[in-house]
C-alpha cells in the first residue's frame, strides 16, 4: 500500500461534470431562442398563444443568463475544483468521509437550488437585479451551497500533503471569498411579510417577496459593484484557476513565470473591485466614482494580460502542439479571447466611448466574446482533459473535437462582429441630429436597422450550440465506452502522446 500512487476519488467531480453539460445545453439553447426572437418576433409565440407568457423574450432572458452563469459556469468551476483540488493538494477525497459527505451534499443542494431557480424565473418571481434575480428563500439556499463549497476548499486544504498552495488554489480561494462578500451585500433585502400596519397585522401577500435594503442610486451602485465583480470572481478568477492547471498538464510545459503569476494574481485582486463603476457612467452616481471606475478599468488590462501572456508564453517553443492537439487549441484560443475581451472592456469603459456603447448590443457582444470564447472554451477544454482520467476511457473522437473547435470559433466570430456593428450603428443613430438640430432618427428606425445583425448573431449562437452538442456527444460516448485500464493512464487522451 505504501508505495502505491494516490487514487483520487472523482465521484463529486463527475456529478458536476454532468450538470455542466446539461445546464450548458439548456442555457445556450435558451440563448439561441432569444437571439432569434429579436430577429423574428413571431418566435415569442413558439409554443402558441396559450403559453406565450412563458416563452416570451422577457421571461426567458433571466433564465438564459442565470442558466449559463449559475448553471453551466458554476458547475464547471465545481467539477474542476473537485478534480484539481485533490491533485494539487495531493490528497484524495476518499481519505475523508466528512469531505466526501460535504461534496455530495453540495451537489444535492445545488440541484435543489437549480430546480427552484428555474421554477421561480418561469413564474416571473424575480427581484429584477441582474444575476441576482432570486428572492430571499433561494438566496439563503445559495448561501448554504456556497458555504459548503468553502468547507470543501478549506477542508481539503486542511488535510493536504503538499504544503505550498498551487496557483490554481489561490484563484479558487479568491473566487469563494469574492462571491461570498458580493452576494451577501448585494442581496440584503427585507421580506415584505414583516411589514405590519397600524392594527399590527402583517404577513400580507406573497411570502417570498422582499424589498431591497438600498434605494435608487445606492441600489444601482451595490448592484453593479456586485454585477461587475460576479463576472470577475465567476468568469475570470476561477477560469484562470483552470488554465493554470490544465494548460501545463496538457502541454507538459511548466508555467512560464512564477513572478508574473504573483503580479497578476494580487493585481487582479486589488484592481478588479474598483472597476464596477464603469457600468454607471453618466448615471446619477457621484462623478468621482465613475472616474475611478473608468481609470481602474484601464489599469485592469495589466493583471488580465499578465495571466494571459503567462499562459501563452508557457507554450513557448512548443507551438507545434497547437496544430497537433485540439485541446491545446481550445486553451490557446481561450487565452487569446481573454486578452481580446479584457482589452475591449477597458475601451468601452472610457467615458466618451461608453457614451456610445452603453445600452447597445456592443456590450452584449463584449460579454459574449468573453463568455463564449474564454469561459466556454476553457470549461470544455477542462472537461475534455478530465474525462479520460475520470472515466478511465480514451476520448471518443479527436476529429470531432477539431470540427467542434472550428464550428464554435466561427460562431463566436459571427457573434461578436455582428454585435459590434449593431451596437455602434445604434449608438451613432441615437445621437445623430439633422442640420436643424433635431433628432435624425426615431427610436424604431434604430431597431429595424438591426435586423440583419440580429439574424447573423442568431446564426453565430446556433453554431456555438451545435458545437456544444458535439462536445456533449463526445463526452457521452467517452464515458459510455468500454473501459481501457483499471488504473490511471499515462497518456490518457489522444492528444497526450
Amino acid at each position: 500500500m505504501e508505495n502505491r500512487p494516490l487514487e483520487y476519488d472523482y465521484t463529486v467531480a463527475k456529478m458536476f461534470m454532468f450538470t455542466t453539460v446539461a445546464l450548458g445545453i439548456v442555457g445556450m439553447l435558451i440563448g439561441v431562442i432569444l437571439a432569434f426572437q429579436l430577429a423574428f418576433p413571431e418566435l415569442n409565440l413558439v409554443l402558441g398563444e396559450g403559453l406565450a407568457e412563458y416563452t416570451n423574450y422577457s421571461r426567458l432572458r433571466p433564465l438564459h443568463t442565470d442558466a449559463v452563469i449559475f448553471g453551466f459556469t458554476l458547475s464547471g468551476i465545481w467539477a474542476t475544483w473537485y478534480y484539481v483540488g485533490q491533485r494539487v493538494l495531493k490528497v484524495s477525497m476518499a481519505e475523508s468521509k466528512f469531505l466526501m459527505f460535504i461534496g455530495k451534499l453540495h451537489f444535492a443542494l445545488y440541484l435543489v437550488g437549480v430546480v427552484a431557480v428555474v421554477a421561480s424565473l418561469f413564474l416571473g418571481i424575480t427581484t429584477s437585479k441582474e444575476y441576482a434575480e432570486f428572492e430571499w428563500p433561494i438566496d439563503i439556499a445559495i448561501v448554504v451551497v456556497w458555504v459548503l463549497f468553502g468547507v470543501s476548499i478549506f477542508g481539503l486544504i486542511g488535510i493536504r500533503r503538499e504544503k505550498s498552495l498551487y496557483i490554481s488554489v489561490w484563484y479558487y480561494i479568491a473566487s469563494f471569498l469574492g462571491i461570498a462578500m458580493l452576494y451577501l451585500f448585494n442581496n440584503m433585502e427585507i421580506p415584505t411579510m414583516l411589514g405590519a400596519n397600524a392594527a399590527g397585522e402583517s404577513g400580507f401577500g406573497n411570502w417570498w417577496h422582499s424589498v431591497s435594503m438600498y434605494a435608487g442610486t445606492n441600489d444601482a451602485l451595490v448592484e453593479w459593484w456586485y454585477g461587475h465583480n460576479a463576472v470577475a470572481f465567476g468568469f475570470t478568477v476561477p477560469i484562470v484557476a483552470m488554465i493554470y492547471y490544465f494548460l501545463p498538464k496538457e502541454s507538459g510545459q511548466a508555467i512560464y513565470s512564477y513572478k508574473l503569476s504573483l503580479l497578476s494574481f494580487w493585481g487582479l485582486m486589488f484592481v478588479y473591485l474598483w472597476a464596477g463603476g464603469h457600468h454607471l457612467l453618466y448615471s446619477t452616481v457621484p462623478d468621482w466614482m465613475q472616474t475611478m471606475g473608468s481609470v481602474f478599468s484601464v489599469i485592469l488590462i495589466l493583471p488580465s494580460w499578465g495571466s494571459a501572456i503567462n499562459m501563452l508564453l508557457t507554450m513557448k517553443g512548443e507551438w507545434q502542439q497547437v496544430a497537433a492537439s485540439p485541446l491545446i487549441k481550445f486553451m490557446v484560443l481561450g487565452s487569446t479571447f481573454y486578452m481580446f475581451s479584457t482589452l475591449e472592456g477597458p475601451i468601452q469603459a472610457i467615458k466618451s466611448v461608453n457614451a456610445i456603447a452603453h445600452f447597445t448590443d456592443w456590450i452584449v457582444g463584449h460579454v459574449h466574446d468573453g463568455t463564449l470564447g474564454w469561459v466556454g472554451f476553457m470549461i470544455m477544454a477542462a472537461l475534455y482533459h478530465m474525462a479520460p482520467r475520470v472515466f478511465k476511457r480514451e476520448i471518443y473522437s479527436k476529429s470531432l473535437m477539431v470540427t467542434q473547435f472550428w464550428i464554435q470559433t466561427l460562431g463566436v466570430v459571427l457573434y461578436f462582429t455582428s454585435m459590434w456593428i449593431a451596437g455602434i450603428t445604434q449608438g451613432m443613430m441615437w445621437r445623430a441630429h439633422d442640420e436643424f438640430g433635431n433628432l435624425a432618427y426615431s427610436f424604431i428606425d434604430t431597431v429595424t436597422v438591426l435586423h440583419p445583425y440580429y439574424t447573423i448573431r442568431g446564426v453565430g449562437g446556433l453554431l456555438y450550440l451545435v458545437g456544444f452538442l458535439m462536445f456533449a456527444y463526445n463526452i457521452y460516448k467517452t464515458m459510455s465506452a468500454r473501459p481501457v485500464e483499471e488504473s490511471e493512464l499515462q497518456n490518457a487522451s489522444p492528444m497526450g502522446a
Partner: protein
Amino acid sequence: MFHWLEKHPFFFAVGIFVTIAFAGLVEILPNFAQASRPVIGTTPYSTLELTGRHVYIKNSCNACHSQLVRPFKSETDRYGHYSLSGEYAYDRPFLWGSKRTGPDLMRVGNYRTTDWHENHMKNPASVVPGSIMPAYKWMFTNKADVETAYAEQLTVAQFFSVPYNKEVPMKDGSTKVVKMGASIAEANELALAEAKVIAANMKDQDVKDAVAKGEIPEIVALIAYMNSLK
C-alpha cells in the same frame, strides 16, 4: 512574504479578503452616508402604481427598457430632462436596466397615454410598425396582486420611513399626500379607485367589466405605473 503566505492558507485567505474588500469600503460606504434624498415633487408609489411596478418586474421589462436618461442633448431631446439621483429615492429596487432594446421609460408618463399603452401592449406592431416587442396579452386577464404591493408599502414605511400618509412637497409649492391603507380592505379600495380612472380611458370591454366587478387586471396596474413615470 508570498512564499510564506502560500504555505499558510488562513493568512492567505485573510490577505485576499482585505485586498478585495478595500475598494468597496472606499467607494460604496461614503455614498451611503448621504443616502439619496428625494427631490421636490418625487412622491412614494401609490398602491396601484406599486402593484404595476411589480408587474413590470415580473415580466422583466427592465431587460429591454432602461429608466435612466443620461445628460446628453440626444437623450434629453428624446426622453426629457436627464435623471437626478433624488428622483429614485423610493425605487427599491432601482430599474435603470443595462440594455435599450426598446426606448427609455424614465419619463414615459409625459408623452404616452393609457389608450396608447392599451393598444401597444396588445399588439406593439400595430402602434409602432416594425416593433420587435412581443405582445403581452395575458396581462389583460391575469389578476394583479395588490396584497403584495400593500405588504411592500407597509415594509418600506416601517423600515425606511417612506412618507406614506404624510405631506410631501411638490414643485408648485403645494403638498401632496400619498395614501396607504390602514387595512388590506382599505388598500384594495384605494387601488380600485385608481383602477377605475385608468379603466375609464380603456376600450377593452373585459377589462372594464373586471374593474366594475372589483377586480384589477395586471394591465391596469401596469398602465398606472407607466403613467406615474414622469
